[in-house]
């Protein structure tokens, strides 16, 4: 698997962004940028080249589902692997995220192992 991939981690809680960043470092991914909601993340995604998006759902400003839809409707970003990492646990929401084109969905609280497995799965086609 390529270790020089560039990640964007979007979560309104700085503690969670730091946890994800640390786990990505442990997996060998050192190139990680952060944003605190969809409104901040979208211009970053449009302006800089990112390979993977990891996003929370429930955030002020633009929530993760809207960010996912914006990414999928932008021709330049449409094929980007998106992993949703969230505490949102309603069954309808997960089906809705799948329909909106999410590649992976990890429910909080999660383990380092689950994150590694899901990343491996969504990155497999790109590797």
């Amino acid at each position, binding site marked *: 698997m390529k270790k020089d991939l560039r990640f964007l981690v979007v979560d309104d809680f700085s503690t969670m962004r730091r946890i994800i960043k640390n786990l990505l470092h*442990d997996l060998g991914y050192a190139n990680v940028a952060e944003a605190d909601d969809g409104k901040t993340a979208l211009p970053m995604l449009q302006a800089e080249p990112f390979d993977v998006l990891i996003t929370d*759902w429930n955030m002020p400003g633009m929530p993760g589902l809207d960010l996912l839809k914006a990414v999928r409707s932008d021709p330049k970003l449409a094929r980007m692997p998106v992993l949703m990492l969230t505490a949102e646990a309603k*069954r309808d929401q997960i089906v809705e995220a799948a329909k909106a084109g999410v590649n992976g969905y990890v429910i909080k609280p999660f383990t380092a192992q689950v994150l590694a497995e899901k990343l491996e799965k969504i990155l497999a086609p790109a590797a």
Partner: protein
Amino acid sequence: MSAIPVSVTLQQQWGEVCLALQEALEAGDEAGFLAVVNSLTGMRERGLWDSLRELDARLRAALDQFRLDPRLLRLAGKEMPDARARLDHVLRLTDEAAHRTMDLVERSTPLVARTAAAAATLAAQCQEVRASGAASPCWAELLARLESHFAAAHADGETVKTNLVEVLMAQSYQDLSGQIIRRVIELVAQLEEELARLVHGSEGALSGNRPAQPAAEDPSRGFGPPIPGVSASTVDGQQDVDELLAMGVAMKGM
């Protein structure tokens, strides 16, 4: 007997009108008949309006009394803003504690990783020298003990590294509890606003000229972490999520 006074009252109140109706009916006087019917309706409406006026006066008096209740004034003016400030403070404290813990984890992980790696190298070197047969029996015994010690130090170091990852993961409580606290803060703010409106803005409330209600819950914004006994239709673990996601992807392809 009660029947007599009731019939007397009925007679007094309606007798004349009934008689007029009867006379107009018998005389075939349509205009006269309708005039009596109209006066009858007017009598009924007057009673209704009197009752409504009385109800309105009682409602206003009750509302004034409610508004002047010092407990309510204290709740809206002080205790609710205080409650929000306290919850904000809890959020800040847990955020600081989680970051402080992660500072220490991030500083400790490279140290233990370095020690574990060095121990593994030294264990291998001890084993190499011992296997070469170059050491005297007494040195060989010491090398065996050192090798065993370094091997254990390496294994312990790896366990500590794993535990430090778990300590890091445990800090996710700050995100989960923080999301729940934020929702309670929003709720308290809405209650505070409604109470303030009731206490200070009675005219608006009574005339029905109310400001916009807070927006209804928007599912696309999310619901926050599930709460046992409160949240419904939630998944039971990651496996459940994986199955639903696969189902959603299949539905998308239809």
